[in-house]
């Protein structure tokens, strides 16, 4: 470990020396705003399943969720990119994980205000350890849609913080279980959370 520290310091010393020399030579360039849009955070999620033909109410379940966005700042009001949403929850029989990957667009109607709305569509992947057909978990794909809104603090700066409320919808088609397939299943995930924003 000590050798590594010495090596790392050895690498950094010439770099800092170069920086000191190079600095006076730099010409002031007009600052180009970054086009990068990154959001990373966490949320508390609530979910509920539904199927058209089974005629029963499913209970609400709760779990922790991770949220991430990466993309492109189109202009001062609009960002587009990919949305990643990961949630895990448990019931009495085991755990289920869902991951949604969507193309999203975020829109801030008022440039100087932090209020934003967001929407998109993509795919969800559900990994189910509950009531599976065999010993392994069942993996299923689903059509996913997301929409929601929130408030971003410091929307003009390179770093910001956002509070959001989102709803993800996953349409699974058939849900495979040990008791047979359940037809026309949809799942709704409501999330309240916070995330840091980098632009």
């Amino acid at each position, binding site marked *: 470990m000590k050798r590594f520290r010495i090596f790392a310091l050895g690498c950094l010393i010439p770099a800092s020396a170069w920086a000191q020399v190079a600095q006076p030579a730099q010409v002031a360039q007009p600052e180009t705003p970054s086009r990068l849009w990154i959001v990373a955070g966490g949320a508390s999620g609530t979910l509920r399943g539904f199927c*058209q033909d089974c005629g029963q109410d499913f209970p609400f379940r709760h779990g922790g969720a991770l949220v991430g966005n990466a993309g492109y700042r189109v202009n001062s009001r609009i960002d587009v990119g990919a949305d990643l949403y990961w949630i895990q929850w448990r019931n009495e029989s085991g755990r289920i994980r869902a991951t949604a990957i969507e193309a999203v667009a975020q*829109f801030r*109607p008022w440039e100087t205000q932090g209020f934003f709305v967001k929407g998109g569509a993509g795919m969800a992947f559900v990994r189910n350890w509950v009531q599976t057909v065999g010993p392994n978990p069942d993996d299923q794909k689903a*059509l996913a849609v997301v*929409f929601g809104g929130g408030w971003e603090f410091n929307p003009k700066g390179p770093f910001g913080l956002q509070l959001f409320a989102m709803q993800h919808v996953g349409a699974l*088609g058939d849900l495979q279980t040990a008791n047979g397939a359940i037809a026309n299943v949809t*799942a*709704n995930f409501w999330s309240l959370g916070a995330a840091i924003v980098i632009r």
Partner: protein
Amino acid sequence: MRDRFGQYLQASPTVFGGRPACFFSILMIGGLLLGDARRSAAQEIPIPPQETPIPSEGTLIPAQETVQGDQAPAAIARDPGRACEGCPPRRVGTSLLQTTGINVMYELANLVRGQVTARITPKTWWTNMQQGMVWDLDDFTVNQIGHPYQGNNYFNAGRANGLGFYESAAVTAFGSATWEFFGETNHPSLNDFINTTLGGITLGEMFHRTGWLIRNTRATGKRRLWSEIGALAVDPITGANRFASGDASRVTDKPSEFVPSSLSGVAAAGVLWRGSQSSAFTAAGDPFLEVDAYYGDANVGRSRTPYDAFWLRMRFGGGSSFSEARVRGRLFGQPLTKGGALQFSVIQTYNYLNNDAYSTGSQAIDAAIGATRALSRRTNFWILGWSGLTVLGAVDSLPLGVTEKPEEEEPSAGQGVSEGPRFYDYGPGSDFGTLARITRDGREMLLFFYVGRQIYSLDGVRANHFLQHTRVDLLLPLRGALGVGASAEYFHRRSYYQDVESTIKTFHYPQLRAYLTWGNR
């Protein structure tokens, strides 16, 4: 508002005593076809950059000398909230309020018609919020045309208040989501949310641009009023906003982004004969009227303005009163070669096909590559190939043992709102296709169209559907704009059922057409 209408009434007292405004569709076709007359002028107008700098408040802009009539003001004070002289002022809050107002109007209209789903209360709102989104069971026409049309109103609440294309898309999603949760008692619907939002964007921008084609912002008096009423019939939200704000009587230039680089259309009237695997061609043909309109030139140019080029096809008759609607709007365009012979585009599409033999509809985003080649001095060849994602597609449910398109039952709740069963499947998928055209002296001689679409059914009969649609048109000029044409079409469906035997079934529907054409490309 009343005062402004009063001014018009004084200027033209017979306006409201005459015939009511025509159907929006007729006006839209008329606008696109008759707008051809202004094409040459439009083509010659050099289009300035989109982002016109906004001058400081109170800046006076001299009126152009081309203004006709004595009502033209000598100078127009430019509102700093407007992106250009003829653009609407930017009002974000108003657009969201109007979107909510549109929902209230639809809700009241449903209530007056006695629709049970319109009896909303705060309790139904809370129930819907707790329930989340589900698939709904409404009629094909309600879901595939009604909802996109409603979405077009939300979209134009944004456009009418000075918002850009993508900003208005967000307003559409807002309107759609609030309608689903708060506008009806039945559970919020996932398919409605997608159809209203994506279909609303496609139809909305198409109607908005068509409205701007009809509107003559340099005219005054009665001529001006009729042009504004015509545009209002096509795009009611923008029209109403313009009458309310007084823009309907202001003499300005059109916003440059709504002046297409070219404009043309072909109307065809004729008879079609359709067959299926269980029956030969019908002896008695179905009459039809079809319109193809081309706004802008999708084959060339660097484009960052969504829908500066789009293609529209609508067909009335031919198996149902309204049997086909297709809109393909360019979102992005980039030449790949120096001369522009090779072109890359991103296209948003809306498709609706509904006749007595089959029904299908979809919302898709495609990436396309097009190539243009001059075959001779007078003959040109253009080919476009595309591939993309079908966000949501719909096709008839044909459970095993059923070979004919099922008749939709009378809606159990009235006005197309049904408690089931639904007779078509929903699901996402993919698509690809090609379009090739040979033109001679600018007139279309040969048109070939093929699209393949895969729909993975997530709601309905569990199957993977592969739909193929091919069409070839041969056209000959007769005299002037008049021509004659014949086409052969083939719709093929192969369904891979997810039953124990993994059954595969195919269905096919050939079609022949003979028609007269008017207009040219």
